């Protein structure tokens, strides 16, 4: 009898495992049931911000080509990877690794925004409560597509989460004009619903949508609208709590930029990261190899301005000193740029002044070489809005003192070195012809926004490639540049293979 008792007990223990085998993940989020409150929408929008601050997007893959394709920055270390050199030399194959790395990520930004917008429909709160948050998603979507349309022209365009994979997988490209229409419509929604100000410039406020509208119209050549929007921002300078930072250097000080009124929309890094997410890399990419002056362990000398940038930049311009480092410290000794290569033990330095905007005041850097800094990156700042207003107004009504005023305001701040107005350079301008004024504004953008990832877009929208990449350009003749091809990137070849309806690729590729 005892035997049976033992046996029964064992069988009892054994049979206890009977299950319906349903999975109930804890610690994972399922899309179903996620969207319940306005805060949940914000969390979903934050996902889009998170994607933007990855290595694939702002860290390197998206930002570095913008630098290298311009006439102001070229490759320093010659052993850097081919996929970067291809952009520098306008020899970009359809499987370029910078593009294919970035392509998926930018669409993840868009998918996150689309998910937030679609999810908001499930939240019961009234429009007045949820739309100011949803409007951030509209802004982000416009922001992402605006980069895409400028880089690729016609692109696959999705404005909702994919539910029918077959349908979404066979769409054709949306024309650049239609993409711009959608961008403008998204920005209009954002402008309508976003609050005038936000807790930080990394969260888009009405000013961001408003300013981006100005930049979008400027890009499409609708100068009247560009002027109207820029003017709208300027008129609301107080409402939007905007202004120019007194000292140009402070714009690039990671420890003080959070308090500045000048950034309008910024990507925020705090020195921490989760792998490559949250790493900005710019201090490493632009920093001087083996340099000891900023305690970063030296940079990589990858993106280094051509020497002509230094030579042609008026030495009296305070912004030149802020933007460039002409000395480095090696083995405790300060050395001029003419011997950077020889001074650094690696032999991979380059004898040119280096970009200083992202290395001089990085704040916390959680990783060596300044791969992850505390820097904020202005996607648009108030000085640019002033320059947009000046440029656009000059196109629609040349010779106005109003346009001169916007330009001179930017130049005046540039004279303000270390918080003290010293020197007379750059002097105010007046009385220029429409054409000279146009050139002057572009020139001003070049120095004011130097290395801020704007120059390539200016070259492309003004179609000045043949001029700036000719023999007299800052980087000398760049024979790889072709006007018929290189204002646009190639769409990734493997993406065209996945959806042949996206063919053909851009001209020349």
């Amino acid at each position, binding site marked *: 009898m005892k035997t049976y008792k033992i046996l029964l007990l064992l069988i009892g223990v054994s*049979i206890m495992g009977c299950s319906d085998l349903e999975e109930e993940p804890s610690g*994972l989020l399922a899309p179903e049931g996620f969207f319940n409150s306005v805060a949940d929408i914000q969390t979903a929008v934050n996902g889009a911000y*998170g*994607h933007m601050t990855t290595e694939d997007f702002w860290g390197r893959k998206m930002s570095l080509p913008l630098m290298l394709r311009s006439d102001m920055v070229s490759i320093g270390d010659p052993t850097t990877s081919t996929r970067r050199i291809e952009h520098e030399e306008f020899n970009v194959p359809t499987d370029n690794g910078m593009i294919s790395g970035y392509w998926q990520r930018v*669409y993840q930004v*868009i998918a996150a925004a689309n998910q937030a917008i679609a999810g908001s429909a499930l939240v019961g709160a009234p429009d007045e409560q949820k739309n100011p948050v949803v409007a951030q998603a509209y802004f982000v979507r416009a922001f992402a597509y605006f980069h895409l349309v400028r880089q690729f022209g016609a692109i696959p365009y999705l404005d909702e989460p994919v539910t029918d994979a077959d349908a979404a997988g066979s769409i054709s490209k949306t024309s650049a004009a239609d993409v711009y229409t959608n961008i403008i419509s998204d920005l209009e929604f954002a402008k309508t619903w976003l609050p005038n100000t936000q807790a930080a410039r*990394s969260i888009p406020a009405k000013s961001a949508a408003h300013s981006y509208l100005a930049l979008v119209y400027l890009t499409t050549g609708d100068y009247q609208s560009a002027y109207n929007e820029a003017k709208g921002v300027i008129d609301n300078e107080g409402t939007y709590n905007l202004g120019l930072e007194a000292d140009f250097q402070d714009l690039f000080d990671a420890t003080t930029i959070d308090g500045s009124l000048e950034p309008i929309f910024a990507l925020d890094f705090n020195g921490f990261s989760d792998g490559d997410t949250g790493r900005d890399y710019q201090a490493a990419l632009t920093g001087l190899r083996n340099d000891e002056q900023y305690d970063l362990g030296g940079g990589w000398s990858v993106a280094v301005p051509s020497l002509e940038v230094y030579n042609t930049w008026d030495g009296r311009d305070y912004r030149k000193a802020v933007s460039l480092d002409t000395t480095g410290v090696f083995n405790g000794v300060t050395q001029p740029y003419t011997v950077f290569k020889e001074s650094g033990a690696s*032999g991979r330095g380059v004898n040119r002044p280096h970009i200083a905007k992202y290395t001089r005041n990085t704040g916390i850097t959680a990783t060596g070489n300044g791969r992850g800094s505390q820097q904020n990156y202005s996607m648009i700042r108030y000085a640019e809005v002033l320059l947009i207003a000046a440029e656009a107004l000059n196109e629609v009504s040349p010779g106005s003192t109003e346009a001169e005023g916007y330009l001179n305001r930017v130049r005046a701040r540039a004279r303000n070195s270390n918080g003290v107005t010293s020197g007379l350079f750059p002097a105010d301008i007046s009385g220029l012809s429409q054409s000279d004024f146009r050139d002057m504004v572009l020139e001003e953008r070049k120095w004011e926004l130097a290395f801020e990832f704007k120059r390539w877009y200016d070259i492309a929208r003004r179609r000045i490639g043949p001029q700036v990449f000719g023999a007299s350009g800052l980087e000398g003749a760049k024979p790889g540049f072709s006007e018929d091809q290189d204002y646009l990137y190639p769409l990734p070849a493997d993406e065209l293979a996945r959806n042949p309806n996206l063919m053909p690729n851009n001209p020349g590729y």
Partner: protein
Amino acid sequence: MQKQLRKAKVKWISLSIFFLFGLALNAQQTVTGKVSSSPNGLPLPGANILVKGTTQGATTDFDGNYSIEVEDGTAVLVFSYIGFVPQEITVGSQSVINVTLLEDTNQLNEIVVVGYGSVKKSDVTGAVSSVKAKELNAFPLLNAEQALQGRAAGVVVQSNNGGEPGAPINIKIRGNTSINASSNPLIVVDGFVGATMPQPNDIASMEILKDASATAIYGSRGSNGVVLVTTKKGRSGKLTVEVNSNYSTQNTANELDLLNADQFATYQTALNPGYAPGNAETDWQDLLYRGGSVSNHQFSFSGGSENVNFYASTNYFKQEGVVINSEFERISFLGNVDAQVTDKLKLGMNLFANRGSQDGVPTQSTGETANGGGDDVISLMFRFAPDLPIQDENGINTINSVGDNVDNPYAIATESVNQTKRDDYRANLYASYDILEGLNFKTTFGYSTRNETFGLFRPSTLTETAGPIGGSAAIENFKRTSLLSENYLTYNREIGKGNLTLLAGYSYQKTNTQRFAAGAQGFTSDSFSFNNLGGGAVPLLPSSSFVESEIQSQFGRLNFDWDDKYLLTATVRRDGASNFAANEKYAIFPSGAIGWKVSNEDFMQNIEEISNLKFRASYGLTGNQAIGAYESLAQFNNIYAVLNGQTVNAVFPEVAANPNLKWETSYQTNIGLDVGLLNNKVSLSLDYYNIDTRDLIIRETSQPEYFGILPSLKNVGEMNNKGFEINLNTRNISNENFTWTTDLNWSTNKNEFVTLLDGEDIILDASPGYFNIDETHILREGEAVGVFWGYEYQGVYQGGSLPEGTGILPGAEAGDQLFTDLDGDGVISPGDDKKIIGDPNPGWTFGFTNNFTYKNFDLNIFFQGVQGGDIMNLTNVQLFNGDSNATTDVLNSWTPSNTNTDIPRAKLRGKEISSRFVEDGSYIRLKNIAIGYNLPQDVIGKIGLESVRISVSAQNLFTITDYSGLDPEVSYFGTGGQGNSESNTTQGFDFGNYPTVRSFNFGVNLRF
């Protein structure tokens, strides 16, 4: 077991009766003597002695002594004992006959453990290999997995990281069957599914189940084969106490021939005229290598009374690696108790505890750029400038003067902490009950847990990796528990000349995995290691996860043999698993096999030479649970995001759901032939197999990326493995004083992707992250898994016009690399000019063992080798790149005056993957040579011991290979780390492996 005991009892009774009769009738001639075993001369208790042609017999007592009555001198005595060759002796005039029985190397009568039961080896219908304790003990092993290397055809065993103390071991049976899922076999220890391997000295036997007829009983976990491990049990009778002690010294088998400081300075100056040579002379290899050692001590005792048997052991293992500061220490315990509670009820329990403590140095780094590609001491000791000291004049650890800023390997090895502590516990209880004659019920209930803590610390004195951030520390804990309950009925019945065995059972297993990690940087002191994360100014993102999976199954098997000639096996298992997608929760895996013992047919009886001939054929389905928990579900995931300087909650849609996701299924055919010749002096097994794995799970790359969401996993691929295996065992010489046996196993496997998603190539990367290249190998339809992908090297470009069909990279000049120009545009570009440049899959592998015994001496010589199988030497990709130290080969670089060379000019260049770095990885290795000596009985008897064995051996004494790297057994997995998918598809890459070692060993085994 039950049956055997009963049989033994019957035998005893009948023997007693015979004795009584014998005594009653007539006291005739009495023969006495002692039966002992060869080669060690130990007495054999319980051996049978039978008078031939009669039923008259006797059994030896505890000391091997016997006494038997015979009619007269013409009587012939037959001495037999399980596992030994029977001997016949005519009595003649002798009254004392001492017999030494030779061990039976013919294994046909062995009992082979199969899933949920056991069969006689001669009745096996599938493909099963056995490794017995004797082979396990042929030479000192670091772990039980190692015992399988070269021992069984079709089984490939490789360390994950060369000779690293405590490195995990990969086992692959009959090739890769998956891309995403593990290709490692299921390990079953004493019936516990998914267990940790016990220590080699505790193992009685290991069975490797290779074909579907053997593995289908394990259903969705059977595709990669199954290794069944049976640990030692106690035997009734005298208590046995055993002590095993081994000590080995180890050293690196090889070093690279690198430039010295002067050569390096010259070389670098050629590259960079401004190079300022350092004034030190450092041989980093000398600094980092040392003589290693292994000590391994095992103590066990076992025994039992009539009803209770036990076995208990403890083992202490310590290895000091051949790289400074790398160590592994292990303490383990095993206990087995079996109790015959009543005639019908048997209870037993199996306990296992293990603590492994690994103090490592970083090797095989993923080379993430985030680490500067610079925390891997092995690759760094090759890369690092030989003209730099360990510390500069200010006491600061040097960083490399060329290439990326990386810390010197000596500083990393001595100052960073890289520690893993792993605890395993397992308990398994069983009850076995004979319900009726022939019907048995067995139930097991077990629980296992693994607790692993990984700590990493880099002090601020590491100038590059940790200096700027004030030191960094991280700690990660991983805990997995598994609960298993199995219940099955076994029914056995004889039907006429037939014998039927039926099995039916139910099994349930639940596994929980919990993980958390935290870290910090910016420590006030370097003394905290990772034990005070709060002492860091900057906390890193913490993370945690919890995963639960369940599997419940029904299984059954039918074994039928008719007249000991015709064998039939049929099995089926139905698995339900929580990991499976909503619409596909249950999977069924059937298999069938037939066997024909031709040699037992009447027409074969006259053919003396053929002692055994058997055909086997099987077909069946097995599965691979390639789906991780929750992988079929749609998922939001967290992402790191910052607003207003603060990290905020952020989620994004990461992956779409696939409710139809299924397991991967292997359709396996096995055809085998067993031949025994000359009284089984020669036994040969041949097996052919064809494994077609369908529904391979691949993340759908055909989904456009503009969806912005990862495609779900889909069942789309098909892979085929076919191969041929030979096992040949011969007893060349066998007499009382001398035996010589030879085991040879040889296998070949051909792997091919039959279909991949839409025929699209999948290009993969196994290079260290800092190489900044994206492509090293490819999966392509019609090709084997993981073939290398890159440019085809055509030697050095001599300048002038390009040779027909070749090209150079943009900007290249005379003296640079010349490649095949596939698209004929004269320019080498990544999109157009890459091709398949090598295949890491070996042509064939073999193991060749010779065992000799002479009196009390024994000798084991074991060769193991691989033919074919290319290696991608990523170490050389780095060392020929100009931004590091180099091998002395660069002294022969192209210069305008030295043009007849294969080595391009000294130059800083990108790390292009090309056939220049693909080498043949074939090798033959003397894996082991061991000599053992058993002290004579008369000597040890005096000191009260039962047996004493002394052995000396050497492992990896020499290797014949053309491979230029340190060792042809390479295993670098690149940025993917050591995840399943990477280890399946990433093969044959060499970079920063911990070196394989050569060792010399002395061992003593004492038995009381």
